[in-house]
């Protein structure tokens, strides 16, 4: 058994993996037995009944009902076992327990974005606390993707028009690979993520400080990442063209005219105010449709955005 598992299957890292692997191993044994029967019979007949000469006579046997029923019904019985077992273990993995830790995952070409219950976001790395079932609710922003954790034996397509879900409970803390399994274009094979099953302390640190790579990232680069991931990109262009909101190109240091007739030079404070209280001052020619980002962006990200806007000449 262990030999077959090692040969064919990745490590079992979720409570569900063992259940699925049992079906896998059962089918493997069924297959081995049937294959050996077929192969042995074929080879044996080829040797045993080798043609002796051109005048060989063979018995004229057209059929044998008993035999044919036996070899139809026994396999039918076996495949029905596999069907019911496979379906039952599938349903176990369908419904997440009520006390699950819930994460929302959004896929788009070619990255994974995660949103945690407290509003924290991360890209391509998913941190979950160890010891609780985790429910991941999936949706896509463009084409089909699939959320595939091989060590947890879970997979679900990610659709653009509705939500799907997977759930798992890890059996040990650690780092696992997340792969996209539904073909989605050029960088399909690079649409990888990591799942960190963290002990409590590690998880709290993640929530407090953000992903590890923020520490080493230059502020403007973090700002660019925030611009793309937090949704700024959908309204603010970088090339000077007019979107739902003013373009960011060269606005730092320029003067904004507001609908109430006042005006102000764009500086660090103004940018910060606009992020936290966008309805406070609305630039002439635009509608006040931007939602507040207060509490959704960490201090580091706001500083990053300011640095990024500064860098856009």
């Amino acid at each position: 058994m262990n030999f077959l598992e090692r040969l064919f299957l990745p490590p079992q890292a979720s409570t569900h993996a063992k259940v699925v692997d049992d079906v896998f191993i059962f089918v493997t044994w069924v297959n081995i037995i049937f294959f050996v029967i077929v192969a042995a019979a074929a080879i044996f007949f080829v040797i045993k009944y080798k043609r002796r000469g051109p005048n060989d006579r063979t018995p004229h046997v057209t059929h044998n009902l008993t035999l044919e029923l036996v070899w139809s019904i026994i396999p039918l019985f076996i495949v029905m076992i596999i069907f019911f077992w496979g379906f039952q273990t599938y349903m176990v993995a369908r419904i997440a327990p009520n006390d699950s830790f819930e994460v929302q995952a959004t896929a788009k070409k070619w990255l994974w974005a995660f949103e945690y219950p407290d509003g924290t976001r991360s890209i391509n790395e998913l941190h979950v606390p160890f010891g609780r079932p985790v429910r991941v609710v999936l949706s896509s922003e463009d084409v089909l993707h699939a959320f595939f954790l091989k060590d947890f034996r879970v997979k679900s397509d990610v659709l653009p028009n509705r939500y799907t879900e997977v759930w798992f409970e890890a059996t040990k803390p650690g780092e696992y690979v997340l792969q996209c399994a539904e073909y989605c274009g050029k960088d399909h094979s690079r649409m990888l993520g990591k799942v960190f099953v963290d002990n409590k302390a590690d998880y709290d640190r993640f929530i407090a400080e953000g992903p590890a790579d923020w520490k080493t990232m230059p502020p403007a680069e973090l700002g660019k990442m925030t611009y793309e991931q937090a949704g700024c990109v959908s309204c603010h262009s970088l090339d000077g063209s007019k979107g739902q909101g003013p373009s960011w190109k060269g606005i730092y240091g320029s003067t904004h005219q507001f609908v109430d007739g006042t005006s102000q030079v764009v500086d660090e404070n103004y940018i910060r105010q606009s992020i936290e209280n966008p309805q406070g001052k609305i630039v002439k020619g635009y509608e006040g449709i931007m939602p507040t980002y207060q509490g959704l962006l960490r201090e580091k990200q706001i500083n990053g955005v300011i640095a990024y806007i500064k860098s856009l000449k």
Partner: protein
Amino acid sequence: MSTHHTDSHHDTGHHLHGGPKVYGVVLAALLTLTIITVVASKIDFGSASANVIIALIIATIKATIVALWFMHLKYDKPVNGMIFASTLFFLALFFAYPYIDTNSRTDVKPSNWKGPAYMPDSGSAVRGIGANFPVAPAPPPPGAKPAEPAAKH
């Protein structure tokens, strides 16, 4: 089973069926059913689906009449009718499975549901050539006000 000695001799016109009288009656029946289906559509049978079902039943009766008399299936070799019937069977199958699927999906929602994963086109924008089509709704900005008052599930 010799196929060369089948007893059909359509070429000699021995086994003619139908005829102007039969076809005239069939046409009259079809026209009557057309009137009935129009009238039925103006009557409210309780629900929209009831009206659709009645309309389709009448259409099926008409189709059967056309197939049996105009298309000669009533007099024809059974094999042709079998081909047609099995076609309809596979068509029904083709409809049934996606129908079963779309009507028995579990409606997965995140616990902080903010509206459908993707809103169908709002319809407010004028659609047309050159009108910046396709209209891709912007991804909902983080913390955007729920599209609908926080729907419960």
